[in-house]
């Protein structure tokens, strides 16, 4: 009785053992991938640091230290005038600080409709913004002490030199919106209802103009009355024409599209940003000095979140807050000029399962022999083997010249190599 049981147990164990022997390398490899990524990523910092070079949204204010909530952003000349009137108490007082950001080329009568944003043609005029501001206050903590107040004026400009057109997806959505608007236009016109009335009105108007029996003054009065009557009639007809529009399918479809219109762009882009702060130490306009200045050139290739995306930034700063090339603060930032550059690329393919990204940074202080220029390079790759399971590999060179590598792929390869035989993989 015991013997068959033992035999059965033994055969079960043999079977289990065979399965385990077959599966162990695979299970261990998976465990290695899942458990050892923390160990593998010890060395390489894959954090994207190109952002430290990026151009500020409003260059003048960033350098002047004005908070973005205090910035006036008038969208037309009238609101700009009102903003200045409010800030100066109807032009009777000078405020302690005032800052504005305007897009002067969007102030004019010519408005840019949605389709005008699908090209580089109007990119400069549409994107051109001027930011300016001034402060008249004492140093930090003593802002209101009159004897210590100095004036600082900042000005910045920003514009796109090259802007890519919309992506295929955005254009498709736009054409669908136009299709719905065309349907809405047809519904609004109701031509048959109106053309007969127009003919009657026209005949009346022409007859009145040709009537030679009426005195000139009376004729003019009748014409004016007819125009007023026609305006009233138009209001009435228009009300009827408009009434049904929101209930139409075209209206609701257009609304759904417009409410979440995607603005993806695809192609080469190039933006320029610059700004400077002038200091008036004794509050006289004939005595000023440039306190801070900066210029940013940002370019690259935008690909609507798919495929290769790359970007580069070149930055010049005069008297920066922090010298990027001098994290230890060895030299004074006063009158220092720095030149920094960076580039980043991202390749996403196989339905976003495989991504390869790289980043390079260069930093230097112009005209300084204490600090040599230094550079940093990071390459990183990821492959999604299953949902929430990724194989990663990264390689980098730091500013100090140290080479490092990391990622769970390195750990997995090392582990598998050790398990399978004597061959060592580094």
């Amino acid at each position, binding site marked *: 009785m015991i013997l068959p049981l033992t035999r059965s147990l033994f055969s079960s164990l043999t079977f289990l053992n065979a399965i385990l022997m077959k599966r162990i390398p695979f299970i261990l490899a998976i465990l290695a991938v899942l458990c050892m990524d923390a160990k593998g990523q010890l060395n390489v910092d894959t954090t994207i640091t190109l952002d430290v070079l990026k151009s500020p949204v409003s260059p003048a204010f960033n350098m002047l230290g004005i908070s973005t909530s205090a910035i006036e952003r008038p*969208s037309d000349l009238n609101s700009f005038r009102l903003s200045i009137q409010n800030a100066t108490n109807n032009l009777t007082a000078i405020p302690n600080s005032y800052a504005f950001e305007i897009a002067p080329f*969007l102030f004019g*009568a*010519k*408005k*840019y*409709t*949605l*389709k*005008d*944003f699908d090209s580089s043609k109007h990119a400069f005029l*549409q994107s051109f913004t001027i930011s300016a501001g001034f402060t008249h206050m004492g140093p930090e903590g003593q802002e209101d002490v009159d004897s210590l107040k100095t004036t600082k004026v900042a000005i910045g400009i920003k514009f796109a030199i090259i802007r890519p057109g919309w992506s295929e997806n955005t254009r498709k959505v*736009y054409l669908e*919106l*136009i299709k719905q*608007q*065309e349907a*809405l*236009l047809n519904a*609004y*016109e109701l*031509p048959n209802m109106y*053309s007969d009335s*127009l003919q009657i009105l*026209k005949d009346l*108007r*022409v007859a009145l*103009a040709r009537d030679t029996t009426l005195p000139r003054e009376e004729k003019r009065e009748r*014409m004016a009355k007819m*125009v007023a009557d*026609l*305006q009233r*009639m*138009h*209001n009435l007809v*228009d*009300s009827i*024409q*408009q*009434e*049904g*529009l*929101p*209930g*139409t399918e075209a*209206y609701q479809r*257009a*609304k*759904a*599209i*417009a*409410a979440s*219109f995607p603005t993806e762009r695809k192609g080469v882009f190039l933006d320029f940003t610059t700004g400077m702060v002038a200091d008036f130490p004794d509050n006289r306009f004939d005595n000023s000095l440039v306190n801070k200045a900066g210029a940013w050139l940002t370019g690259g290739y935008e690909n609507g979140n798919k495929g290769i995306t790359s970007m580069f930034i070149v930055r010049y700063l005069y008297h920066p807050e922090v010298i990027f090339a001098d994290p230890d603060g060895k030299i004074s930032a006063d009158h220092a000029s720095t030149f920094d550059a960076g580039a980043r690329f991202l390749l996403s393919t196989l339905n976003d399962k495989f991504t390869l990204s790289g980043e390079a940074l260069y930093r230097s202080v112009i005209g300084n022999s204490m600090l040599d220029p230094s550079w940093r390079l990071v390459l990183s790759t990821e492959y999604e083997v299953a949902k929430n399971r990724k194989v990663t590999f990264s390689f980098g060179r730091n500013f100090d010249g140290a080479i490092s590598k990391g990622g769970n792929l390195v750990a997995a390869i090392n582990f598998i190599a050790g398990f399978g035989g004597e061959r060592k993989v580094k």
Partner: protein
Amino acid sequence: MSITPLKKVFADTTGKTNHYDEYKVDLSDSPIVMNLFPGTTGQSAVSDVIIDSNKKGSNIQGSITNFTIGTGNSLVNKFLEVYTIITDVATDSNLTSLDFSLTGGIAPYRYKMERTVQEQGDSAAYKITIFFTDFS
């Protein structure tokens, strides 16, 4: 098709969207030129231009610039109708507007209208009617 009560539809909308006027032209061959700028910046617009029930321009996207609609001679005692649908796509404002102008007649003519729509994505329908009269 269900009809939404007019009062409810435009409860929170503001502004005028239709206009009628006369425009004096002389009986010559000088061209009458129309400009139409739908706004505000970033909104999507489609327009039809009709002269006495005949379409002169159909489903024109965006703004209409330097559009010759005829000569003074050919337009006198005729109606110009311009229909425009403006859909609110710009996220920073619910304001739609129309800036219409004519040149080539006795004096330049310009008229502006605007309407704030209730919600993001809503559309406003604009209509301008001009009757051309001769200067006599």
